[in-house]
């Protein structure tokens, strides 16, 4: 579904991505783990056309999309749930969700969009309870669910999730990860970018480890979970007991 080859991105004179290659097959959940500043968000921003790539190749659903504008990408089925939720605070939960389907207003029927709305409410019963509430008044976890729900409303072929667990209480984060796990059953392909390597590798099929703009490891998620290199990259020497 997504194939990236030697992606290079600069922020001014700084090379943030130094030739990053990875792929996500249809129906997979792939985790991209790395410490702060490794370049995870840069990858997502580059994929979504928010930050220009200097070189490399990105193919989505068979078509090259490097440096394509974000709105075109959404229409092609690539949706991002950005870091920090970024819901439209003054609007209601219901409106936030419906806005997620904005670009489908001409191509999809009312019934289809209503059906999608209902299924999002089924996935997130908490949102269903708060449909008339203003998004800004929701808790962190609920906002995260709203952000994901909004992305789902765009009927994506692939979902890019940027640090969905950041700033959330562990139990809430766990709930979010449980929902993401169910996306596989729905046939949605997921690229999950996370600092919480353990949790994301726990639900992913495969993972890549990113260190200062370079990929240093690739494997099945289960293997990476047990890999000493990965453990050390996140917690440093001597902190292995914290991992467990």
């Amino acid at each position, binding site marked *: 579904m997504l*194939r990236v*080859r*030697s992606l*290079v991105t600069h922020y001014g004179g700084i090379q943030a991505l*130094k*030739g990053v*290659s*990875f*792929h996500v097959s249809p129906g997979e959940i792939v985790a991209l783990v790395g410490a702060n500043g490794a370049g995870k968000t840069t990858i997502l921003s580059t994929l979504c056309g928010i930050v220009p790539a200097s*070189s*490399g190749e990105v193919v989505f659903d068979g078509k090259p999309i490097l440096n394509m504008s974000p709105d075109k990408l959404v229409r092609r089925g690539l949706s991002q749930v950005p870091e920090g939720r970024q819901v439209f605070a003054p609007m209601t939960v219901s409106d936030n969700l419906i806005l997620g389907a904005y670009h489908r207003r001409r191509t999809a029927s009312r019934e289809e969009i209503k059906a999608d709305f209902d299924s999002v409410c089924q996935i997130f019963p908490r949102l269903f309870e708060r449909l008339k509430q203003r998004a800004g008044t929701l808790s962190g976890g609920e906002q995260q669910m709203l952000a994901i729900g909004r992305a789902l409303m765009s009927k994506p072929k692939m979902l890019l999730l940027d640090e969905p667990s950041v700033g959330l209480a562990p139990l809430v984060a766990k709930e979010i990860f449980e929902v993401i796990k169910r996306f596989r059953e729905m046939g949605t392909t997921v690229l999950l970018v996370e600092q919480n390597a353990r949790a994301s590798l726990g639900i992913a099929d495969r993972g*890549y480890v990113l*260190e200062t703009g*370079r*990929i*240093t*490891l*690739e*494997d099945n998620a289960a*293997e990476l979970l*047990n*890999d*000493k*290199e990965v453990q050390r990259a996140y917690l440093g020497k001597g902190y292995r007991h914290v991992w467990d």
Partner: protein
Amino acid sequence: MGIWNEKYECLSRDEMQQVQLERLQATVNRAYENVAFYKRLFDQMGIAPEEIRSLDDLSRFPFTTREDLRDGYPYDMFAVSLRDVVRIHSSSGMKYAPTVCGYTKKDLVNWMELAARTLSAVGIDKDDVVQVYFGHGLFAEGFGFQHGAESIGASVIPVSEDGPERQVAVMRDYKISALVGTPTYALSIAEQMEETKVDPHSLSLRVGVFGGAPWSEAVRAEIEKRLKITATDYYSLSELGGPISAECENKCGLHVFEDHFLAEIVDPKTGKLLEPGSVGELVLTTLTREALPLIRYRTRNLTSIDYTRCSCGRTLARMSRVCGRTDDMIVVQGVSFYPSQIEAILAEMECAELYYRLIIDREGSEDILEIEVAVSGEVLGDTVGAIERLEGRICTQVRAELGISPLVRLAELRTLKSATGGSKGIVVDKRT
């Protein structure tokens, strides 16, 4: 017939290249960060790891040789700290000093996976009883196949390097269906069976996977005939341990495990990349090794690679059976050739047993090549005319193939066997 890992053994060429690029970049990044040798090498050449943007860029990188491994003895080439290395094997180092190979837990898992692929390819499954007679010691191969067979679910008996009588006894009593070991020892086992009048039909033997050193089609035919089994080849390097490529039931080339190793063929003299199909030196880059990543390692083995599809369903490229070593090359009267070329000619002569000696000497300003080949007692007892005709045929063939006229001498099997010290063919170069 069993494809152990359908996902990775049947990827499209495009998908495989993507996997290879990802793993190559990760490997080069890790090697540069963690192995002083590679950091020095790249810095010296002014190349940064991120300059690998495509698989083709790899050909700009320098080679790694066996000498580099030897110089790093024992642990300098490791990319991880010793506490993460859970197994260490060493090569035998006869002509050269030994090289050391380390394995992390994940390296062992991968090794087991490739051994399982190798065994499955010839149809070994959980109902088989496998006899592994590779040594289980400092030298690697026995362990890998034991764990690989266990992961398939087969019953494994690690007989290791016990004597031929024990091997035959185990084969008979334990109802062994599959053998894994060196091809030359398989012939010793066959000899033991013949001497003790054990009929191969009375055993449960079905298949065998052999490797550890190059062996010819003639030897395969012998093994298959005398043990009544299907015999397949696999390829490994003592410096790395574990199968790198293996034959499928079609026996038309060894499928390279391309998701774990990137194979290139280069001209042994110039180091230039050769086209698929050309015979040259196999250069390997590990894609998944953690403890000992190797980039463009010169294997000194000669082979060629075929990227066309095999009818077995695997899309993994096939390498031909190793047809010689770069350091075996001999130059006589200005002609360079490999002993394997002469061996191939001798294999066609039905009256010759496959034991030979190549003796090279110099008389005055001329190089002389003498081929001593073993024949059965009946042939030696034949008329002088018949003997001369056989010698003549060998001479003509060699001249046609190489352009040199050798002296050919037939010898008695046992005498020659002791002269060669048991190896099929040796080269004695008397020129100083």
